């Protein structure tokens, strides 16, 4: 039984069908990559899973819970965190306030402190800047904050939307190393990326999306050597 299972999902924006019946699954402990060009529907899928957008057909199951119609704020309590596209940190709040906001669903103060320590170990830069307002951070630091904030909820699965977007190569390297670490510590990862090469290099399996449909799926290493993928997404 998969941890997260998406079955025949369809999403409409008005009359336009953005997601045309896709199915995929994420197993416990995996890193799954969803790759595809701009407008393929990657972000829409993540938003639908975490309840920000409602689906018009299909079913989403998370650990035996049908979450298809569940409001977003309730899904977080089940152990799912979402690092949204464009980071969306609370720019007027401090770094520490942002991280505390990530632990909104948790009650035990000691456990929250422990997680905060863990996040600071992963992102020492966030500790250095904990009293700074998030809006004053650089793009890469904001990405770290968005990831740290998601980790604060102590999720079983973490959905990441374009974590490398707009970042300098050094930051991209760092962010992907941290995703590997997060996965190694036992958290399942569903990663949406335009940087297909990077995404495939750390993923176990991947799905290739084209205009709302899955056109290819399989082992990440195999997809990396697939001629059509190479041509369309790896720029070779």
């Amino acid at each position, binding site marked *: 039984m998969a941890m997260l299972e998406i079955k025949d999902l369809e999403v409409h924006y008005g009359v336009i069908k953005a997601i045309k019946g896709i199915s995929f699954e994420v197993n416990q402990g995996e890193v799954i990559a969803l790759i595809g060009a701009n407008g393929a529907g990657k972000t829409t899928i993540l938003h639908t899973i*975490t*309840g*920000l957008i409602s689906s018009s057909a299909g079913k989403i199951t998370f650990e035996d819970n049908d979450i298809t119609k569940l*409001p*977003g*704020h*309730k899904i*977080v*309590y089940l152990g799912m*965190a*979402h690092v*949204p596209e*464009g980071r*969306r*940190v*609370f*720019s*007027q*709040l401090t770094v520490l*306030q942002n991280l*505390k*906001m*990530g632990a*909104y*669903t948790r009650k035990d103060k000691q456990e929250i402190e422990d997680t905060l320590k863990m996040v600071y170990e992963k992102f020492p830069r966030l500790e250095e800047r904990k009293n700074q307002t998030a*809006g004053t951070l650089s*793009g890469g630091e*904001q990405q770290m904050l968005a990831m740290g*904030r998601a980790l604060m*909820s102590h999720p079983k699965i973490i959905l990441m939307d374009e974590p490398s977007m707009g970042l300098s190569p050094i930051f991209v390297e760092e962010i992907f190393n941290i995703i590997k670490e997060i996965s190694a510590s036992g958290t399942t990862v569903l990663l949406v990326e335009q940087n297909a090469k990077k995404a495939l290099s750390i993923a176990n399996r991947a799905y290739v999306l084209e205009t709302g449909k899955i056109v290819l799926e399989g082992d990440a290493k195999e997809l990396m050597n697939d001629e059509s993928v190479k041509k369309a997404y790896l720029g070779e």
Partner: protein
Amino acid sequence: MSFISYLINGISLGSIYALIALGYTMVYGIAKMLNFAHGDIIMIGGFTLFVVMNTLGLPPLVAVLIAIAICTALGVIIEKVAYKPLRQASPLAVLITAIGVSYLLQNVALLIFGANTKLFTSVVTVPAISLAEGQINISGETTVTIIASIIIMIGLMLFIKKSKAGQAMLAVSEDKGAAELMGINVNATITLTFAIGSALAAIAGALLCSAYPTLTPYTGAMPGIKAFVAAVFGGIGSIPGAFIGGILLGIIENLSKAYISSQMADAIVFAVLIVVLLVKPTGILGKKINEKV
């Protein structure tokens, strides 16, 4: 000595504006909408007090509590029925709806209570204070109004800083979607904001009608507009801003009435707003929001 009297009266009037402005600014800060019906909730609070005290003969404190309960419920119902369905609509549609709700409340009050001015019995039982050998008299209403508004503002700031619901409000005011992803119930947070704003309006209604003891269906309209001006003046979305804006507006209005012209007082108030906005478009304490793309 008369200057000090005018000043104190101005602070008192300003405290009422501040209470109303706090409701305006909270709803704007969190739901990003201007609730033009806010002033009319004050009027409903006034009529509730009038009915409970004069018709049912209950003591003032009980009457105030009932008015708070009714206004809170009314605020929540208005939000659910009129504004919530428009959450994804354009801000203009919501604004027009708010104006519609304002007229609806005024006309319902007109239908029930008629257009005749009602004489309001003050809810304040605190005695007046006489200072400087009787040259300065501070009415009980003034004392209570000023103290109440200070306590409420500090209470609100602590609530937002310390409580979980307050933190949720901060998150929702910045980014509803991201707040939802934190596990915050955005709709419930907006409802709570309307409830708090309306409860403050009820208190403002009680104080306003006690200080200026006449009541008509239009009683809330002008103070509502002025409190909106106060909120913009102080920096809309900012709680201390609303407070400072309200107090300053009350002082400016009262001093203009005393020294320049009582007919011109309102015009002067709005002229000051225009000048402030020309010099500092975000208001006194308003923050400039840099949106990073």
